[in-house]
């Protein structure tokens, strides 16, 4: 199963090796690739910086200061998670015609992705022990110095984890950037794939993209280091002291309001606007229902398959911690770092060469989903299994209950909620997945995402609106789930 997750990585490595270093270099060392590299790197750097500033700033305001209605702001700040980035860019591009290129991409991507930094930082801020800050005050540090020397270092792993997610999501982002006409590796691979089906140029671009992903993973590992930040004492922490903003309270609340207006208000307005425009022309209930049915069906099937695959990996990691089980778990994380487009490209090539019968079938599409979303399921199942220690099995045995009955009466009931959460996350991610679906879905299969993509690409904004609305509605439960349990958002939050 770990091997399955490594198929895309293996494909890239083997392909590059087969093509030979000379030819590979000729394909890579072109001005076009340099331009793509420049675009991709500047966008990654720019977006991680803006997402960090926005995410940390908002998290601090909501969690540690006396801004009014902080619970409401929290809900609204998490809300962009329910809007797929390509839907967000559609709502911007359709309302603000001038928004494209680097600035457009920076604005839209930041407004879509900042919750990936915001959420883990909120989780850490909530868990901080106020005693640490009090200790710093008692040692004579001022408030600003305490924030810099005590609070910020504790936020570091969360911020790094958030930046890692932003970078990897960005490298994988296709729909939003294509719509904003800002070419990166992913959009270029897709264009190449469309024009010269399965060409070597697309595959070499994919290799460079994978290299970038691995560099980012390594960079995060190095930056985070081996340090762990844990609250040393047990027992309930006291609530933190709320900082009074005084005269800054009004202006800073306005800043929050502006972020929410741009990140949530504008897409909402845009959707409503285009729904009105669209429904005045046509409202294809039948097609809408068919696409929704396909999306939900694929989501359910992928969720079931992924959770079944995740169980053994998580079980091994929790019950038999060791090198092998760690490797199996990590290999699924590597797959998670690979953009959907690379997974799709790899599966296209491998299936055409090795297992022709499954090419252009749902089997291959579900396989791609399983590889892409396995880590999310592993994280949830693993966290759930940690709630069911071996001790409980032993107690059940001592009470005369056999192994199978113990699984049925103890283990399963305890881990069921966690497994349900994992399945729900995969289900919702698959229901709105665009890139791999475009490349791998059998001909004549339309999902909400692909139908939306077809309509909005041909500038039929009104016709696209109902599909966008349905995708947002489907994504809301996932956003709520992530808002409550920030740790579910990142497989890298799991202990290494």
């Amino acid at each position, binding site marked *: 199963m770990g091997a399955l997750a490594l198929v895309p990585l293996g494909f890239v490595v083997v392909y590059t090796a087969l093509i030979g270093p000379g030819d590979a270099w000729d394909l890579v060392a072109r001005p076009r690739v340099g331009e793509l590299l420049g675009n991709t790197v500047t966008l990654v750097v720019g977006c991680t910086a803006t997402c960090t500033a926005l995410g940390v700033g908002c998290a601090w305001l909501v969690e540690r200061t006396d801004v009014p209605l902080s619970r409401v702001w929290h809900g609204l700040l998490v809300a962009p998670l329910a809007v797929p980035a390509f839907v967000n860019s559609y709502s911007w591009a359709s309302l603000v015609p001038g928004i494209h290129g680097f600035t457009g991409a920076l604005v839209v991507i930041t407004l879509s992705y900042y919750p990936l930094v915001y959420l883990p930082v909120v989780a850490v801020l909530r868990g901080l022990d106020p005693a640490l800050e009090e200790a710093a005050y008692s040692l004579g540090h001022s408030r600003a110095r305490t924030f810099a020397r005590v609070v910020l270092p504790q936020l570091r792993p969360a911020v790094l984890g958030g930046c890692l997610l932003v970078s990897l999501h960005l490298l994988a982002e296709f729909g939003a950037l294509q719509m904003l006409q800002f070419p990166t590796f992913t959009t270029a691979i897709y264009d190449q794939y469309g024009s010269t089906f399965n060409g070597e140029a697309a595959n070499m671009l994919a290799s460079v993209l994978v290299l970038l992903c691995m560099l980012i993973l390594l960079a995060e590992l190095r930056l985070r280091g081996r340090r762990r930040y844990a609250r040393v004492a047990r027992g309930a922490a006291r609530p933190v002291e709320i900082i009074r903003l005084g005269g800054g309270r009004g202006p800073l609340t306005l800043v929050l309001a502006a972020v929410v207006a741009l990140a949530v208000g504008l897409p909402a307005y845009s959707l409503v606007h285009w729904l009105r425009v669209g429904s005045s022309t046509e409202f294809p209930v039948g097609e809408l229902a068919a696409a929704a049915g396909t999306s939900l069906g694929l989501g359910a099937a992928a969720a079931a398959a992924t959770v079944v695959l995740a169980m053994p990996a998580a079980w091994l990691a929790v019950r038999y911690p060791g090198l092998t089980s760690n490797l199996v778990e990590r290999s699924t994380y590597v797959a998670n770092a690979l953009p959907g487009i690379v997974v799709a490209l790899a599966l296209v090539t491998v299936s055409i060469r090795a297992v022709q019968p499954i090419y252009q079938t749902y089997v291959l599409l579900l396989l791609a989903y399983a590889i892409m979303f396995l880590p999310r399921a592993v994280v949830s199942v693993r966290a759930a299994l940690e709630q069911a220690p071996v001790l409980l099995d*032993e107690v059940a045995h001592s009470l005369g*209950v056999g192994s199978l009955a113990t699984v049925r009466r103890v283990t399963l009931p305890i881990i069921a909620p966690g497994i349900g959460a994992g399945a729900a996350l995969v289900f919702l991610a698959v229901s709105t997945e665009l890139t791999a679906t475009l490349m791998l879905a059998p001909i004549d299969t339309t999902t909400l995402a692909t139908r939306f993509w077809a309509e909005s690409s041909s500038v039929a904004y009104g016709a696209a609106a109902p599909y966008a609305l349905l995708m947002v509605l489907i994504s809301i439960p996932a956003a709520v789930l992530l808002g409550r349990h920030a740790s579910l958002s990142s497989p890298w939050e799991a202990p290494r």
Partner: protein
Amino acid sequence: MTRLELRGVSKSFTDVRAVAAVDLTVPHDSVTAVLGPSGCGKTTLLRLIAGFVVPEAGTIRFGDVVVAGDGRALPPQQRKVGYVPQEGALFPHLDVAANIAFGLPRSQRRSARVGEVLDLVELPAAFGSRYPHQLSGGQQQRVALARALAPEPSVVLLDEPFSSLDASLRASTGRAVLRALRVAHATAVLVTHDQDEALSLADQVAVMREGKVVQAATPREIYRSPVDAGVARFVGGAAMLPAAVRAGVASTALGELPVAGDVGDGAAEVLVRPEQVLIGAGAATVKARVDEVAYYGHDASVTLTVLPDGPVVVARAGGLDVPEVGATVTVSVAGPVVVFP
């Protein structure tokens, strides 16, 4: 309930001999405390009895039934042991009633048995509908015991059940648990590293050291007649004084002391417990300097250096009359002393 018997039970892990040829008998309807420092093998011993671990050698009998030995071992689910682990380990997804009914056959899960055992551990019947996270640590331990007792096990095993509770709760929960075990006529093994707990709760105390049971006896015998200096120090305060024994009398720095039991003449060490050391009593002539006083209110622990230059002994003084640090007092020893040749 049944008598529990271990004969020559051994178990090793990779290179550590965790339990080495242990013999131990727990009589029917009694509580034995297995006492030892951490890492002495006492928890492994408990897990061997429960069946979570299989011994390499020796036999374990519940009454006449061999549950481990002769190359076979009954799995834990067929042994009918009641197991109460350290933190209670209640099933978090079940309420108290369902936890207690867990080991009962399906037909009995709704019977009056749940109420009976709740009553046995002195919890109100209304607790049945609570969930583990709504209970205090002491209550969780009582429910864990109720769950273990519900199926009427042959043997009840308690693995440091009170160590996660704070001091005040530990004593009261310990007594309540013991009352419940007595009412149920249970044969029980209590593993602990706390000598007060072992001495005050059990009928028999088995002291373990490096995988072996070095002494198994009643609490009084363990405290008053330990087999060696190590056991003496482990179960309470102890000063070991060099002495010369002659005709049943030991000459020590604290005077001529009568010897308990039959001991041959020669050089030896005598054990003096703090409560044997009396300050300023009767015709005492030995002088000592007060070095340190730990005052507890009801009594005090006084560290003394016998003048002119030792040895150092500790006395337990009544809370009403505690000497000052630096004062010179007279000391004597009450009662016969135990001698180790």
